[in-house]
């Protein structure tokens, strides 16, 4: 049943502890959903796609809203941290600006005050703006849930690398009863520079037609002297790394030639669909163009460093 402007019937429950939350989610299965910003959830509820009976508010649980940055250990972002909080945080801007750039590209200022990093990733859309950044920054998702190996119903944490998290459109490695609590990003290689390019129907505010993130850093162990990471959104069933393009750039010295070839490889890694926002052919072609622009931008900044 579709409801506009209201929402279908459900009970709002404020979780008091992590263990209690995962137990309730495990017990109720599809009938209960964690409530983060609600910016994807309410849309799907109003479309009638899902009709949860319980929304479990978990945003206030310990650590969910924290951003902790340590020079050596890296960055930990709580799952309930909003896009605006990520995008404006001095530590994120200083040490992981790609994540800030991605977060700041989401929707509108109002939505960014509610949309969360955890919600964006767990929604599992191939278009998720923070996904390419999570892939390139080698994020590890801290997932709390029932421990399958413990018969007593104990709960524990497991870590899933971002590169293993996305399984299909709207499908992630989350299991029944599990809750994402944080995303952990390791220290970046010295001199790393990155860029997120988002193509939409408008300059801002839209879901992406194509999203491309490029990260590059000097590396003596690479024959080309540099390593690049390339992340693609909205052009495949999952957000993904263009691994063949990356491998090419390990070998071939940076420059227009190498970048053009890498952009072609990135394009080949994409298998986009056509939808209301763009045709498949357009998306495919734009992967190449955006990858090329991203590589040029990152290279220019690497050279001026």
């Amino acid at each position, binding site marked *: 049943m579709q409801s506009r402007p209201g929402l279908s019937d459900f009970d709002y429950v404020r979780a008091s502890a992590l263990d209690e939350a995962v137990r309730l989610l495990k017990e109720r299965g599809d009938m209960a959903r964690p409530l983060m*910003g609600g910016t994807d959830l309410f849309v799907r509820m*109003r479309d009638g796609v899902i009709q949860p009976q319980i929304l479990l508010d978990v945003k206030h649980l310990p650590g969910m809203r924290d951003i902790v940055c340590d020079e050596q250990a890296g960055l930990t972002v709580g799952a309930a941290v909003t896009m605006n909080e990520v995008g404006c945080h001095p530590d994120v801007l200083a040490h992981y600006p790609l994540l800030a750039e991605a977060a700041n590209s989401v929707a509108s200022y109002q939505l960014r005050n509610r949309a969360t990093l955890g919600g964006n990733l767990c929604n599992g859309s191939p278009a998720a703006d923070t996904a390419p950044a999570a892939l390139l920054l080698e994020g590890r998702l801290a997932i709390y849930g029932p421990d399958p190996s413990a018969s007593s119903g104990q709960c524990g944490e497991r870590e899933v690398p971002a590169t293993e998290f996305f399984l299909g459109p709207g499908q992630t490695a989350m299991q029944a009863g599990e809750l994402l609590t944080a995303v952990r990003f390791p220290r970046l290689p010295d001199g790393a520079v990155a860029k997120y390019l988002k193509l939409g129907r408008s300059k801002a505010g839209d879901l992406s037609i194509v999203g491309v993130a490029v990260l590059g850093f000097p590396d003596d162990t690479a024959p080309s002297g540099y390593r690049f990471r390339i992340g693609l959104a909205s052009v495949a069933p999952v957000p993904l790394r263009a691994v063949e393009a990356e491998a090419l750039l390990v070998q071939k010295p940076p420059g227009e030639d190498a970048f053009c070839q890498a952009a072609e490889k990135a394009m080949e890694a994409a298998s986009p669909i056509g939808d209301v926002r763009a045709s498949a052919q357009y998306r495919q072609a734009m992967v190449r163009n955006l990858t090329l622009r991203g590589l040029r931008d990152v290279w220019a900044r690497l050279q001026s460093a």
Partner: protein
Amino acid sequence: MTMHTITVRVNGDQEYVVVPSNMTLLQMLREKLALTGTKNGCSAGECGACTVLVDGEPVNSCMMLAVEVDGREVTTVEGLAHEDRLSAMQEAFVEHSALQCGFCTPGVLISAHALLERNPHPTDDEVREALVGNLCRCTGYLRIVQAVQAAAEKGGAS
């Protein structure tokens, strides 16, 4: 369906409201508090006609549950004017003809007020960026940007 009794300060007034779990902040404002300045446009968090401030920050009230503002402060368009006069931003909108049908205007005013709070002297681009989430079908935005800048030059939104 659980009912919740919440305390919320709306436009400076302390309110005690009983709301069902599934009532949005927008519905609460319009239907429980008769603050009908805030509008429903899309019910999807895209048009911004429902924009209000929660603890000073703009949010789409159609995308927030009423129960989630328990213990917090909400400002709607009704809370922008002073006792005896409009806010400087509202006056600028009138002076610069920054509205036509007026349906988007409450949301635009809220976003614009919040913008000048955090960025007292925005560039035109920054104004447009701040208003990405407030769609207007009438004005083409030009006079809206002019009005916001006029208010900024006069010393702020209030």
